[in-house]
């Protein structure tokens, strides 16, 4: 597949909607792995005394890839396979941007779907071709409210 064909196929493509419950165990595993001991994320009684309905999910709980935690979505795996086929096998995580709109609590259900916003050609300092692939994901809670938007910038390096 040529680069033009990859762009034709992928820009604007949207992945399947996934629905995940934000459960206490996943929040616990997340904060332990980060080493974040904020009581809002760990102590349900404390969170309730601070006015929350339950444990607060930290803003970093939204994973790269559009799930309530970070399993790599199928759309991105398929995209990366095509990138390799087009001669861009070096995959790097370039960065991430979030807009947060509402607090998420344990017991909330989040639905999300990743979409490929754009593929931009650039050149590395060493003069190699690379692509910036922007993947955007909205997270919607069980009340239909937008809680966060995430934009991931993947870098695909040429051979």
């Amino acid at each position, binding site marked *: 597949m040529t680069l033009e064909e990859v762009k034709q196929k992928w820009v604007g493509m949207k992945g399947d909607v996934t629905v995940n419950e934000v459960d206490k165990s*996943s929040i616990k*595993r*997340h904060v*332990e*792995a*980060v*080493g*974040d001991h*904020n*009581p*809002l994320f760990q102590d349900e009684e404390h969170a309730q005394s*601070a006015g929350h309905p339950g444990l607060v999910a*930290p*803003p*970093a709980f939204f*994973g*790269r890839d559009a*799930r309530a*935690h*970070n*399993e*790599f979505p199928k759309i991105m795996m398929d995209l990366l396979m095509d990138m390799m086929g087009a001669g861009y096998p*070096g995959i*790097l*995580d*370039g*960065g*991430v*941007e*979030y*807009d*947060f709109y509402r*607090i998420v609590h344990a017991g909330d259900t989040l639905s999300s779907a990743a979409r490929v916003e754009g593929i931009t050609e650039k050149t590395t300092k060493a003069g190699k071709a690379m692509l910036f692939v922007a993947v955007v994901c909205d997270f919607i809670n069980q009340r239909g409210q937008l809680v966060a938007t995430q934009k991931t*910038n993947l870098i695909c390096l040429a051979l």
Partner: protein
Amino acid sequence: MAKQIYWEDIKEGAEIPSLPKVATTQMLIQWAGASGDLNPMHYEDAFAKSQGQPGVIVHGQLKRAWLVQLMTNWIGEQGFLRKLGCQFRGTDLPRGMALIGMPKDGETWQCKGTVTKKYTEDEQHLIDCDIWIENGQGVKTTPGWATAVLPSRG
């Protein structure tokens, strides 16, 4: 937790209290399990080397979580993190393990930030910040930015 800060008390140019962090090979495994990011770049040395890295590297998404922690620690329970972004410019290499649960001596990272702008918008009291992670040599491997809503003394 630090005590609550208020918008009126924060000046442009103010420094956010630094958050020191250590990454070990063990912590990367723990993050891989918690996050579901099973890229072997973060736990298999030979694979990382085949990808042109000096060895396994720290997950960008874990570094992003450190920066989120820097902000949420500082803005307190009444603050709300509105935006956060960062770029994974430099790779970071975890410390090895000396014993189960005890890292070898080595690098400590510092998450840092400064307030660049203070303003109100739609009756919200906001601050913009530059944030970043420095490695043990003081090099900024992970520059970023954040916007937060702070409580006002009214």
